[in-house]
């Protein structure tokens, strides 16, 4: 049933965020430490285990893949509800500080060295059904390589 997949996802999120809060308390900082990341690891392990045991029929899986597919629309809604006006009010110091930080961070990425694998493997099922990913692969092929 679809709700089993949604419930599994919800359960991973609740446990992960709770663990992130506890971790923050243990470190004595007023912040959630990696709650979403912990939830993702839980879903990878539990989802992988159940799917190996053939305990995840397609209908259950669709409860997770639906939210996976809603990800980009949710990000668009998130962008539309950002406090962009406040950022622009912050003026030049805020803009320069973030420009320098982002520029330096981008420049550091190649220093970590490129991995031998150029593309994420195409059979990765995470967004395989998503028409967006197919489109992005297609468009990256059609781009001229510089």
């Amino acid at each position, binding site marked *: 049933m679809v709700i089993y997949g949604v419930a599994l*996802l919800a359960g991973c999120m609740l446990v992960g965020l709770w663990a992130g809060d506890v971790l*923050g308390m243990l470190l004595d900082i007023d*912040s*959630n*430490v*990696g*709650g*979403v*990341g912990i939830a*993702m*690891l839980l879903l*990878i*392990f539990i*989802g992988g285990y159940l799917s190996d045991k053939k305990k995840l029929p397609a209908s259950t899986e669709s409860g*997770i893949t*639906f939210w*996976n597919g809603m*990800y*980009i*629309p*949710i*990000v*668009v*809604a*998130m962008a*539309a*509800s*950002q*406090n*962009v*006006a*406040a*950022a622009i009010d*912050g003026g030049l*110091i805020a*803009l320069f*500080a*973030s420009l*320098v*930080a*982002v520029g*330096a*961070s*981008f420049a*550091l*990425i*190649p220093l*970590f060295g*490129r991995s031998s*694998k150029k593309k*994420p493997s195409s059979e*990765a099922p*995470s967004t395989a059904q998503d028409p*967006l*990913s197919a*489109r*992005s692969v*297609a*468009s990256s092929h059609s781009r001229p390589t*510089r």
Partner: protein
Amino acid sequence: MLESLLTQLEKQHLIAAFALVGGAMYLSYIVSDKLTRGRVHGSAIAIMVGLILAYVGGVATGGTKGLADISLFAGLGLMGGGMLRDLAIIATAYGVRFQEIREAGMSGVVALFLGVIVSFVAGVAVAYAFGYRDPVTLTTIGAGTATYIVGPIAGAAIGASSEIIALSIAAGLFKSILVMIMTPMLARHIGLDNPRSAMIFGGLMGTTSGVAAGLAATDPKLVPYGAMTATFYTGLGALLAPSVLYLAVRAIF
């Protein structure tokens, strides 16, 4: 007639947001196809449109939630708020193989520490260049440049004024907006096309919303890897900024 339609839209705000975002994405994909021949990804255009609308909404209402402050579009705040955003980010992890995460694990941790320190130093340097000399102010702006959540946490911990905290939040907001816009443009030039570099990218940038939107507009397959490391960044920043980094700033200035 029209009034009752508006009332319904306000009442069913989340549903109205689904319809609105769906329509905006449809138009964005048409623009992507016809005007840029797919060179600029449709979701990148949709995110830019979202940011512009957020600016318009913020200026029109003076609120803090962009377009969502206009009551007709209140559902955007719920749809794009932390709860559903985190649920959707976690859902992207389904089907990821743990092996890929373990292989990049160490680089991800190094990237996290480096990311917090580089952004902090950049913020401190720019604040210094603009004439600030007080260690508390420098630290707060540096912390805000890491993410807009770390700025207020550090500022409150070391006693910064509310204007400086607001400035630090603005720096963090700019950072997340810049990451959203620049990632799809720069991705190919920095080798951001595999899970490993996505994890390093997430660790270096740290802004979960920026990383999430930037990768979505680059290649949705990379989202779970970047988001995974980025969610540890704010915690690490909140740990380092008011303690080690503040002491370092005080020792230097």
